[in-house]
């Protein structure tokens, strides 16, 4: 390895400089491209990133920096989370009081809690957007198939992390949100009750639940996240950076012009990181994390809602029997996400936003269909459809589960076939249209649950909540 300058006479160099040189392998201030490469290769952290990359993949609107933003939010969470751990006491008697003390007595305690809270919520949103970016730019095809799976595991970890953290303040909001979410697990056939017992650490939510959640939140999930993120970044590097962007129909030259990651990529990412940190800080100064009254197991609030990222599933529970809303549909969606990169596609459209021009048109059409059908279904189900009265002869699993699910499935499959035949869409375009359809439907379910469900979870206007 070229240790530039190490052959100068050591004796003349001051202790400070010699110390820094012992810390950083290679040059401190790289002067030319060769040295810049060495800085990246020789640095434990930087070497997770590519050394050089195609110039065109620097374009901001190709990745929107969403992956890097996820990392920055994770670092903010780790930094503030460690501080919170010094104050927080994970027991039902002390948890709420310790959060109150944090907010009112600890120096900048409220700000630290706010930063932790908002970073966590932004992280969910940013990771979702990152998933969408990767999907719609075709970044999941070989050789990146497995990195898509690592990404999905990261998403799962981020969700578990948020969910376990949600309980910790032990206020009305968290206590009942966790009650109904773990209540949903009870609908899993056969093992539901056992699983619920394991997650709660007993038959009801109490100190064992809090210990379970606290341990997962502060140890298990963060460690998993760090390991998986390192793996994720390294796989991006091994795939020679992100998928190279191109316009629809454009062929890429064999060897696209490439530039060094330092400074071109790393400085851009640094700028995005600084802006993001500034934004989170400012937001946390002005908007407080919610803290309701202390948890009261004797009184449920009205309405009781899951955390916003699970409200879509909670909404499903109003339209499908539990075993479909909690088991069949989520498992099918998860299986579809896992299989996406491994389907046999005739052509791929890697690097092109939405595959092709036709892909874009079909995507818009699918979004419009979902935009009409989903609210219609929700409203009809609320005010008109009454399976119990119409089909009283059938058991609930069939009339409220299998039947509406079959209708839904027929709709999706029919639409898929129609798109393939009528518009002679390629498989990747048709699958993408279905992805858009279901994605928009899920977004509408979530929006309905968050803003359009009031007392008793009846439909209501946001201004009447």
């Amino acid at each position, binding site marked *: 390895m070229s240790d530039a300058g190490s052959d100068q006479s050591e004796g003349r160099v001051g202790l400070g400089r010699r110390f820094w040189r012992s810390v950083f392998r290679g040059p401190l201030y790289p002067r030319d491209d060769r040295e810049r490469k060495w800085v990246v290769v020789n640095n434990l952290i930087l070497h997770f990133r590519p050394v050089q990359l195609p110039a065109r993949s620097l374009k901001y609107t190709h990745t929107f920096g969403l992956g890097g933003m996820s990392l920055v939010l994770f670092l903010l969470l780790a930094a503030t989370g460690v501080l919170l751990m010094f104050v927080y006491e994970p027991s039902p008697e002390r948890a709420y009081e310790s959060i109150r003390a944090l907010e009112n007595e600890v120096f900048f305690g409220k700000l630290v809690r706010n930063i932790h809270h908002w970073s966590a919520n932004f992280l969910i949103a940013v990771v979702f957007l990152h998933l969408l970016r990767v999907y719609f730019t075709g970044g999941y095809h070989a050789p990146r198939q497995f990195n898509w799976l690592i990404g999905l595991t990261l998403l799962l970890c981020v969700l578990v992390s948020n969910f376990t953290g949600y309980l910790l303040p032990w206020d009305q909001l968290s206590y*009942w949100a966790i009650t109904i979410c773990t209540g949903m697990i009870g609908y899993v056939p056969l093992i539901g009750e056992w699983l619920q017992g*394991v997650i709660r650490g*007993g038959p009801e939510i109490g100190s064992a639940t809090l210990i379970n959640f606290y341990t997962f939140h502060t140890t298990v999930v963060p460690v998993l996240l760090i390991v998986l993120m390192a793996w994720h970044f390294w796989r991006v590097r091994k795939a020679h950076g992100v998928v190279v962007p191109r316009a629809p129909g454009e062929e890429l030259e064999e060897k696209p012009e490439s530039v060094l990651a330092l400074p071109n990529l790393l400085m851009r990412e640094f700028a995005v990181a600084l802006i993001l940190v500034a934004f989170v800080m400012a937001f946390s100064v002005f908007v407080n994390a919610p803290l309701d009254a202390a948890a009261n*197991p*004797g009184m*449920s609030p009205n309405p009781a809602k899951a955390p916003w990222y699970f409200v879509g599933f909670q909404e499903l529970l109003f339209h499908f029997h539990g075993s479909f809303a909690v088991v069949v549909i989520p498992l099918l969606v998860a299986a579809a996400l896992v299989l996406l990169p491994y389907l046999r596609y005739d052509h791929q459209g890697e690097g092109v936003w939405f595959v092709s021009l036709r892909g874009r048109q079909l995507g818009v059409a699918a979004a419009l269909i979902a935009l009409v059908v989903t609210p219609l279904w929700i409203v009809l189900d609320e005010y008109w459809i009454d399976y119990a009265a119409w089909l009283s002869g059938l058991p609930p699993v069939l009339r409220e589960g299998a039947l509406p699910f079959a209708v839904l499935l027929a709709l999706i499959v029919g639409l898929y076939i129609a798109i393939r035949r009528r518009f002679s869409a390629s498989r990747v375009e048709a699958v993408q249209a279905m992805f858009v359809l279901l994605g928009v439907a899920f977004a509408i379910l979530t929006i309905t649950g968050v803003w359009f469900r009031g007392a*008793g979870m009846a439909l209501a206007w946001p201004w009447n909540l």
Partner: protein
Amino acid sequence: MSDRRPEVETKGPDSTVGASSRRSFLWKIWLGLGGLAVLEYIWLAADFLRPRGSGPADDAESIIIAGAVERFSPGSVTAFPTGKFYLARLENGGFLALSRECTHLGCTVPWIDDEARFVCPCHSSAYDMRGDVLNPPAPRALDNYAVRIENGIVKVDVSRPLKRRSFEYAQIVLP
């Protein structure tokens, strides 16, 4: 697995067929032992995570003494916050101890005296005085607890909720 070994070794003098199959056999054993260690850890972790505090509580704690029979007028529902149940005395004078946990997703259901029904604040399931579902999404009747009447004193065993699909006459305990 033998193709995993570095070049040099395969060229070594002792790399006879016997040695390499012996190595691959040992390699498999190590692999198996490693797998076993992982399984043991998972088993251990599962045991640590096993529901705690759910074991049969001792009688003194799980039997709640509700009071004398005459204290409860027929057609009334009395809340017992410490035992987390309601004691219903039906019109015929029989007793029924109902869990306050909604069977939909587990919210706590208050008794609404004016309407003579339990209404869940979370997703508006409703139950009648006997715990039967009046209004979905609740999938089944409220759980009940075993009631005993000894010497005119009503006692409720809250150690284990009894799951039931709907109300049945046999669940009533007559004084």
